């Protein structure tokens, strides 16, 4: 058999290749958009996006900005884990954005108003998101309400709930919540020296924690009895019930874990104190939706999600380096949006590759067959002599 094909057939390899294709395509389309708007600065601009922190002059600042990209990767990774976990077990968690909000809400509130330590804030944040997930799951399990519908509803409820509650943690002037580092230091995540390593105070244990979660989710899905049950339930509720699994519990549990992951993302991000919540926000955070793109770009694999989340953050961050004398301010968002959009096409390209492979294989085996036949004819001829 053709030697290259088995490798290409490998799911992991396919995911990798298709992800790369998507990324390149995204960059090309992004470049085209820039070029159409203003041909002069296009090359410069797209390079700026790709280079992101490499645009910085010194290695110290590069490292610092790399650290900040990582700070933003952690919440995205958790959101994408939430999406892919639910997806793998047959549910589409579009409520990530709302669950993320709830994580932020409880984290900041309990940190600033109740003065709880960081781990309690984190825990309460996770619980809030998990509870919201549980609600979705309950509605699905007992009333067969589509999780997409309830997820979208809960997104808005959560957003405005968060805005409302965090009025209590607002700075006197402006519309943002307080800086935890100045007002509630005990709630800020510890760094364990990571801040020194990167030369940036916002780099905390959020990053290793997020990576650990990715590994845990991978293990859960792939290696454990619980994962076996959850996936079976997601794929065929009736069969799950038939073989005695607690199918309703499993649906709810899936959403609880999904909600908890997303909320953990929100809590970790805001407990790093890298940013402040705008209590007048009128749209749900994009993190939840980028999480969907990251999940697919990572081939729906928790370990793949680590890299895809980083890439998407890298590109979004890199948008800041587009020269604003050539382009309007929104261009950065537009470019990263285009690239992220194309990232969703991983499955599409995968199917394409598989079809191609099949055709190639068919041609190959047909040839092989002809060759064998020809050889047979020859040897038969030889025998007769």
């Amino acid at each position: 058999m053709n030697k290259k094909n088995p490798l290409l057939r490998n799911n992991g390899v396919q995911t990798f290749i298709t992800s790369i294709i998507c990324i390149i395509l995204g960059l090309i389309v992004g470049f085209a958009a820039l070029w159409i708007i203003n041909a002069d600065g296009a090359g410069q601009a797209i390079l700026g996006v790709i280079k992101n922190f490499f645009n910085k002059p010194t290695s110290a600042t590069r490292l610092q900005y790399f650290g900040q990209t990582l700070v933003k990767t952690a919440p995205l990774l958790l959101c994408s884990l939430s999406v892919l976990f639910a997806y793998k077990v047959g549910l589409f968690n579009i409520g990530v954005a709302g669950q993320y909000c709830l994580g932020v809400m409880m984290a900041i509130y309990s940190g600033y108003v109740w003065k709880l330590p960081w781990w309690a804030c984190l825990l309460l944040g996770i619980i809030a998101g998990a509870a919201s997930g549980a609600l979705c799951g309950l509605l699905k399990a007992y009333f067969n309400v589509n999780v997409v519908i309830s997820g979208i509803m809960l997104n808005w409820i959560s957003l405005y709930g968060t805005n409302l509650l965090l009025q209590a943690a607002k700075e006197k002037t402006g519309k943002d919540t307080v800086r935890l580092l100045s007002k509630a230091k005990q709630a800020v995540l510890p760094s364990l020296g990571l801040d020194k390593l990167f030369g940036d105070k916002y780099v905390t244990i959020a990053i290793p924690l997020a990576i650990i979660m990715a590994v845990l989710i991978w293990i859960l899905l792939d290696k454990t009895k619980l994962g076996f049950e959850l996936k079976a339930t997601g794929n065929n509720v009736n069969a799950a019930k038939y073989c005695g699994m607690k199918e309703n519990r499993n649906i709810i549990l899936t959403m609880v874990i999904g909600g908890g992951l997303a909320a953990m993302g929100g809590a970790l991000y805001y407990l790093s104190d890298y940013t402040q919540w705008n209590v007048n926000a009128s749209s749900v955070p994009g993190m939840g939706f980028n999480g969907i793109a990251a999940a697919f770009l990572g081939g729906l694999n928790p370990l793949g999600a680590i890299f895809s989340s980083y890439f998407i953050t890298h590109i979004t961050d890199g948008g800041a380096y587009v020269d604003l004398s050539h382009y309007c301010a929104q261009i950065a968002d537009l470019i990263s949006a285009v690239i992220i959009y194309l990232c969703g096409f991983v499955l599409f390209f995968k199917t394409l590759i598989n079809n191609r492979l099949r055709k190639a294989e068919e041609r190959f085996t047909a040839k092989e067959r002809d060759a064998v036949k020809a050889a047979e004819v020859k040897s038969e001829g030889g025998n007769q002599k």
Partner: protein
Amino acid sequence: MENYAIEMLNITKRFPGIIANDNITLQLRKGEIHALLGENGAGKSTLMSVLFGLYQPEEGVIKKDGKVVKINDPNDANRLGIGMVHQHFKLVECFSVLDNIILGVEPNTAGFLQKKEAREKVVALSEKYGLQVDPDAVIEDITVGMQQRTEILKMLYRENEILIFDEPTAVLTPQEIEELMQIMKGLAKEGKSILFISHKLNEIMEVADRCTVLRKGKYIGTVEIAGTTKEELSRMMVGRDVEFVVPKDPAKPTDVVLDVQGITVASKSHKHKNAVNNVSFQVRKGEIVCIAGIDGNGQTELVYGISGLEPLKGGRIEFLGQDITKMPIRKRSTMGMSHIPEDRHKHGLVLDYTLENNIVLQRYFEPEFTNAAGFLRKDNIRKYAERLIDEYDVRSGQGPITPARAMSGGNQQKAIIAREIDKDPKLLIAVQPTRGLDVGAIEFIHKQIVKHRDAGNAVLLVSLELEEVMSLSDRILVMYEGEIVGELDPKKTTVEEMGLYMAGAKRQ
């Protein structure tokens, strides 16, 4: 040159790990009924799916009326007048019967549905061919038999000329089968050409003109039915002689294993009726009790009630002396109850799981397959699956790692049977266990069931197939409209007498 409606010439179709069709030629005459026979996994469904445009063959051509045609998808097939009833129905579960029938060819004026017209046509067709359906019932609520009839109506509605029936009779009652045979003969007389897959040799002998036999993906031969016998056909197909009736000693029933006391189960499709009404019976160690009856008389719900898939509305069930009326399914299973479900795709399998994962579906939580920390012991799962695959001759492209979805219907069934019998249950509930199995596999499974009985276990068999009922059971309970209307001794009764009970004409 002969006049063929369809010719499939030198078709080869491969799947990962297996050549499903290896250089197969099949020629269908106009107006004939052509049977396709072969063991489970021989490649029958694959060949038909190629004809219906679901798969593209790697080699070979298809000719219609002597002209080469390319069938890229079912739409092409439909345009060429080819219709297919699939082995596993392709119906939209939450649509009504009528909507399923007209799906894709909805009559409309300026984009607005004209359902009335469609309904009339469907009703007319169903009357003409005696295919009883309720056009407004939703698919997920109706019996498998009615789903089947919906599929057939779908083809007739589209006025297809070449009709493919992939194991249509596997799910029908004897009466329905008889009717279907008449329908097929009528259709053939009208000039339609029919391809008919069945594992039941009697049916082939009765209805077909010719029969093509496949074995392990290869073409074995085509014979005229008039000049052959059942035995010869099965020899062509399996490569050896097959015993049609399994020898068994008289039963020696002992202790009661299952004691059903006046149970009532609500009906899903009719709000105010009970599917099972005040039913009582016992099954003892060492006997095979069979529930016979026409499909849809409450057998399905009775089994749901006993296995715990549906709650009881009334009554009590004792299993091994314990009240299990409210016991969860898992508990019943670990106590020693096994259940070969009626619908293998709905309950029996997680189609996206591999064969090995499906094989441990009832046992994955046992210490052998999950360690104390909750991690799966994958090598034990693999070993166990390999043993069962070997013992029960479950054939597939890639062995334990084949996705269940990619297995032939009969082999999916064998995997389920293997899983349920190997659990060594005290009570084996087997609903249509041999549905879709080839004669060789049926012989094997029947032997397993008898062996299981002889080892001192109880078997509750639900079957629509009278032959199976007669040959396998030690006691027959006939169900009619949710009630048990008679208890018969298979040695003393006749198929005719049983038929009277089943039709409600007689009761004890």
